[in-house]
């Protein structure tokens, strides 16, 4: 019953006119950016984040999360209609979704994607509502030792599961942790790495880091590839899925939801890995695997459900433990901190309307997306045809005004410019920037817990091996590192990734 009371509180918050409006704006913007190739959710959320600072915390979060899961929907539309992944998580949807479109079943493909995603979103929302309080109970037992161990595990796993070289990912996490330490030291108040600049005493503005490394670097690297895209406007006469198709889609959707819900929970997991895993499993289970790649319905329905479920359940570690499992969640934590809400198990107690309101809004947002997506397809088709040269000056200006508006200062713009150059360098030597952002957010927290743990143990490093929870988490992290460093497994991992890409 308590569960229902909580959800009731959440719906009360989410159904206010203001929050509904921003939820709608969020999913609409999210769908649009999901559809536009070359503009990802991370860059967009970084771009719009400063504008949410003036909103209520719950309203701001509702809008940001709307963008995030809206982008999963939009990405599949592009994948199906143009064979271009609008989002990295919809790479798999290209394979069979686009083939379905070419076989004249574009409408059905879009409908299956939308309904599958909605089903997955509904289940995932219920999972979040049911499991978050349980996980938060566990988190209340955590002391500094366990928190530190969990962050080590989280960062290791996130780096491991992110694509790209593992060792460079670790280096990026460390770089992020270091950058996160800039500013006043919590215990002594000493200004570290500020080089005498007063504006650095509160640390580097994380929106500037995110925009520089993602939004602006993306622009630099995308400008060359700006070509007109051929969109074969699909025949949308029959949007309705026929009985046979529905039957073929049903089980894969359920399986995809299950896979996505589990993988979304893992640090570094989330939408993309969930969709790859679901595709692989559907192909293995299929009676006629030779149909895959030629418009198999299971090859579309499963991954679509999985990516949406994964996108949603990746909120659980962020909301209950304060640990971001991917770049977008790192930005959400930053947004919470701007509103003086410390992410972690206490959010549920201290700001229940934020927590449950966000969860309720996810379900509402998913429902909006189904209603929104299908009738607006002609509009989305037009949007795919927008040229990149129109898009990127708009992104630049909106970002600049946003950076300025954070504290009416030009400083963040200069920092973003600097991080653009650094981001280009990272791109050049193929170092993935998302782990850096995770490290950047967790840097100060990690130091705090590390120092507190050793203060409690009076300098005895063995304290990390006295708590059973901490032993388990640190050992898992160590095993992951070992496994990845064994060349045999590393090779097969890279094969797995090229196969998927």
């Amino acid at each position: 019953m308590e569960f229902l009371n909580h959800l009731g509180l959440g719906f009360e918050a989410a159904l206010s006119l203001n929050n509904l409006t921003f939820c709608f704006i969020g999913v609409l913007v999210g769908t649009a950016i999901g559809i536009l190739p070359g503009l990802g959710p991370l860059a967009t959320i970084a771009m719009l984040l400063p504008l949410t600072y003036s909103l209520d915390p719950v309203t701001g979060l509702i809008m940001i999360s709307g963008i995030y899961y809206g982008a999963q929907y939009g990405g599949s539309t592009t994948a199906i209609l143009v064979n271009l992944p609008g989002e990295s998580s919809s790479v798999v949807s290209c394979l069979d979704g686009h083939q379905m479109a070419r076989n004249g079943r574009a409408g059905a493909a879009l409908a299956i994607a939308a309904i599958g995603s909605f089903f997955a979103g509904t289940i995932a929302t219920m999972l979040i509502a049911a499991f978050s309080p349980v996980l938060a109970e566990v988190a209340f037992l955590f002391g500094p030792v366990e928190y530190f161990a969990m962050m080590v595990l989280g960062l290791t796993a996130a780096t491991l599961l992110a694509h790209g070289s593992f060792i460079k990912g670790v280096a990026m996490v460390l770089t992020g942790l270091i950058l996160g330490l800039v500013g006043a030291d919590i215990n002594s108040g000493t200004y570290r790495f500020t080089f005498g600049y007063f504006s650095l005493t509160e640390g580097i503005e994380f929106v500037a880091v995110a925009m520089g490394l993602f939004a602006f670097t993306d622009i630099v690297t995308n400008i060359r590839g700006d070509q007109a895209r051929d969109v074969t406007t699909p025949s949308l006469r029959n949007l309705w899925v026929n009985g046979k198709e529905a039957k073929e889609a049903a089980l894969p959707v359920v399986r995809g939801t299950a896979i996505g819900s589990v993988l979304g929970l893992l640090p570094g997991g989330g939408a993309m890995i969930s969709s790859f895993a679901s595709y692989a499993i559907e192909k293995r289970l299929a009676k006629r695997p030779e149909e895959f790649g030629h418009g198999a319905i299971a090859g579309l329905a499963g991954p679509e459900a999985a990516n949406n479920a994964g996108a949603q359940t990746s909120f659980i570690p962020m909301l209950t433990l304060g640990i971001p499992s991917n770049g977008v969640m790192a930005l959400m934590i930053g947004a919470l901190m701007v509103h003086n809400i410390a992410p972690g198990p206490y959010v549920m107690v201290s700001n229940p309307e934020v927590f449950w309101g966000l969860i309720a809004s996810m379900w509402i947002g998913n429902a909006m997306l189904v209603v929104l997506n299908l009738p607006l397809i002609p509009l989305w088709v037009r949007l795919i045809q927008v040229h990149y040269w129109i898009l990127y000056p708009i992104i630049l200006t909106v970002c600049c005004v946003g950076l300025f508006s954070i504290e009416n200062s030009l400083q963040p713009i200069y920092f973003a410019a600097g991080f653009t150059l650094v981001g280009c360098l990272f791109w050049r030597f193929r170092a993935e920037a998302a782990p850096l952002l995770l490290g950047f957010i967790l840097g100060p927290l990690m130091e705090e817990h590390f120092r507190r743990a050793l203060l409690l143990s009076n300098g005895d490093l063995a304290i990390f091996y006295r708590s059973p929870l901490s032993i388990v988490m640190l050992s898992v992290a160590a095993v992951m590192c070992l496994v990845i460093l064994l060349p045999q497994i590393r090779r097969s991992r890279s094969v797995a990734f090229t196969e998927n890409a």
Partner: protein
Amino acid sequence: MFFRLNDKADVEAGLFFTLFGGLTAGLSLQYQMGTIAAMGPGMFPLILGIMLTAIGLTILAKGVMAGGETIRSLPLKPAFLITLSLLVFAALVLAVGLVAAVPAQVFIALWASDHFTLKRAIALSIGLLLFCYLVFIYFLGVAVPMIAI
């Protein structure tokens, strides 16, 4: 560039991380270290700096010996122009106002594209100025001046 290893991503990455880690470790020496039980502000950055240096050297060694991934060639003109467009925006927005900052940014940024034409730049500038006025100044009340002088 680097002993004809300039197409090797890991060599560059290794150098970058080694230098950054070394710099961090070096700079953190100026802060109090404290003891393990009561760490000063310098200890944690020093640990991270040393770890990063070690990993940077490993990446460097891997790059020199095994080759690894090749670098992607960075489009220099866009990288330069996009960064410049940000700096120019920052320089103009408070001094002259959005009416100068937005067109300047659009011109410089669009110059990086193969699709640059004067007409397109002007049209985009006007559209963006209208958008900025309506959304940022009128609706959101951002304290950014349209005309500062």
